[in-house]
């Protein structure tokens, strides 16, 4: 199986879907002539031309709303945000229009659209550029929220997202663009709404997503050397939440740690913790623990930022706390 970077896997998904359906087009800042701020759209302008790979002005509200309108009229746009942090500029368009126009019209309209781009912290780009906003969007009814952690899922989930007839928020991770792994060639669709056990274990379950899945896996390796067996579930889709996969694991290990990069208050992990205590109370041998970023704006300084993020050392310590 070919080894691709996360970035190349996304590029392959875009390219294959655009070849398959000429209603699919990509729009965003620097996606065409610049080949993409993170090179996800590299080579696509040459392949598909300026009608379908469209450089926009720095005007998130304008081009997001335009793409939603085009989706209402039958196109299947993919909108790239240079970073999801910039989606705050057009939050109204995503929430009020993409997510709600079908409901408000009594089902007359469809909005087949994918909003995608980089997200997450750890690259010392400061508070305005380091948001991890999956829980903000997951709070909006009718939005599907996807956060792939590995190249194969990046490809398979983006292809599925483009084929969805509903609005999808697809949050990539800036730190993972260069991550390499096996990716199936050609038609490879990953089911939306299904989590994946990325590492099997018996002492404790970690539920995580995106960059935090890698932190969890690294921590699990460290803990293995100490004789602690950790199961790691990568959520992949935040909403709809695959509770069945979480439940099957918790019933087996009886201990749960949630690792998410969101700030602590009302992050998606709070929802998971709620559902686990509500439905699996008798299966728990210890209180559910939840590790998040610290409740502060993202600092620029590298040492401070690593301290804010749910890094491996904090994961290891949290696992031991739950097992104590």
């Amino acid at each position, binding site marked *: 199986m070919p080894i691709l970077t996360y970035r190349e896997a996304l590029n392959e998904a875009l390219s294959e879907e655009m070849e398959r359906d000429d209603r699919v087009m990509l729009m965003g800042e620097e996606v065409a002539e610049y080949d993409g701020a993170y090179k996800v759209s590299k080579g696509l302008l040459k392949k598909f031309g300026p009608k379908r790979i469209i450089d926009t002005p720095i*005007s998130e509200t304008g081009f997001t709303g335009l793409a939603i309108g085009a989706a209402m009229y039958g196109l299947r746009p993919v909108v790239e945000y240079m970073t999801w942090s910039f989606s705050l500029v057009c939050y*109204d368009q995503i929430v009020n229009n993409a997510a709600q126009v079908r409901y408000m019209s009594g089902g*007359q309209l*469809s909005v087949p659209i994918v909003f995608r781009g980089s997200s997450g912290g750890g690259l010392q780009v400061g508070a305005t550029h380091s948001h991890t906003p999956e829980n903000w969007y997951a709070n909006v009814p009718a939005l599907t929220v996807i956060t792939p952690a590995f190249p194969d899922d990046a490809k398979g989930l983006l292809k599925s997202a483009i084929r969805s007839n509903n609005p999808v928020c697809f949050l990539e991770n800036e730190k993972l663009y260069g991550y390499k792994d096996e990716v199936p060639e050609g038609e490879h669709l990953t089911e939306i709404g299904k989590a994946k056990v990325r590492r099997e274990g018996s002492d404790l379950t970690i539920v995580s997503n995106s960059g935090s899945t890698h932190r969890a896996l690294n921590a699990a390796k460290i803990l293995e050397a100490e004789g602690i067996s950790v199961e790691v579930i990568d959520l992949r889709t935040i909403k*709809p939440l695959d509770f069945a996969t979480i439940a099957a694991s918790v019933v087996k290990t009886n201990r749960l740690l949630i690792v998410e990069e969101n700030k602590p208050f009302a992050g998606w992990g709070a929802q998971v913790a709620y559902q686990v205590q509500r439905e699996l109370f008798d299966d728990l041998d210890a209180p559910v623990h939840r590790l998040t970023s610290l409740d502060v704006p993202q600092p620029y300084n590298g040492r401070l930022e690593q301290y804010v993020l749910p890094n491996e050392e904090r994961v290891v310590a949290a696992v031991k706390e739950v097992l104590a």
Partner: protein
Amino acid sequence: MPAADPAVKNAKTNTSSRLPELQPAQKIELFRQMVQIRHFEEKAKQGFLSGKIKGFCHLYNGQEAVAVGSISVLNEDDAVITAYRDHAHALARGSDANACMAELFGKITGCSRGKGGSMHFFDVKKHFYGGHGIVGGQIPLGTGLAYAQKYLGTNRVTLAYMGDGAINQGAVHEAMNLAALWKLPIIYIIENNEYSMGTSIARSSAGDPLTKRAGAFDMAAIQANGMDIDDVRAKTFEAVSLARTESQPTLMEIKTYRYLGHSMSDPGTYRSKDEIETRRKNDPIEIYKARLLEQKIATEESLNAIDEEALAQAQAAYDFAEASPEPELETVYEDIWTPEDQIPEFQPNHR
């Protein structure tokens, strides 16, 4: 209100660059539409005051010539999108008055199945794309409709309406920049009724006239007298022709006046009764009525008969809405997701 007279339909599918002279029957149809809207709004007012219509209810009285005149120069498959003062645009696009009134009552028979309310009318079969509640938020959407019309090679155009208050929203300027940059077949229509809610235009908007906002984008701009339906038609037709033949956008400012409050909850403290009374003397329906009489196209009696018919239609819509059933509670879970056909295994669970 589908046009019964074939001549009216022909006028609507005209693609030449000159606005054709209307036949008498077509002129009477325009009058009928304006009167229909006036009576519909009066009935809506009655429904609101008697507690049957809830939420926000923004009425169109005084502005009828704007929606009726501008939509009358479109083809039936051109797109229309507007803000929350939207009843007239739906009716002028041919939406069923019963379904519109039922929507105000929140009934399942409403044009948005009781989920939209006054501000969120939709009738996509009639190419009416809403009914939008956030000031200026519909303007990027309308620009996207025009984008798709061009992308798909339809030769259709979009009319995107906004109030004068919307012109100070960033979304509007971002959308106008994109339309000018990418040469999109769209006509932005500012319905300038002089007040954004209770704030007069002099207190909200620097730069007069508002059409100057188009200059920065090298966009065509045109003003029209919204109290004169013939002027609205002539100017809109120019803009529509530019959009259809050259794929170029236009910003229109149509000067009008609303007689009633911003919504039904308006205390009316920001303007005088004298001002409203003076402006009511310049009524678009009365002006057009006088013109039809002067041109001997109609008689006082025949126009009164149309008025009575429109009143009866509004009453029938009211009765229909009142008699319609409430939505079943289960419908709250409907209309969230479009069924998936390319990834059928994905069935989002939202309960």
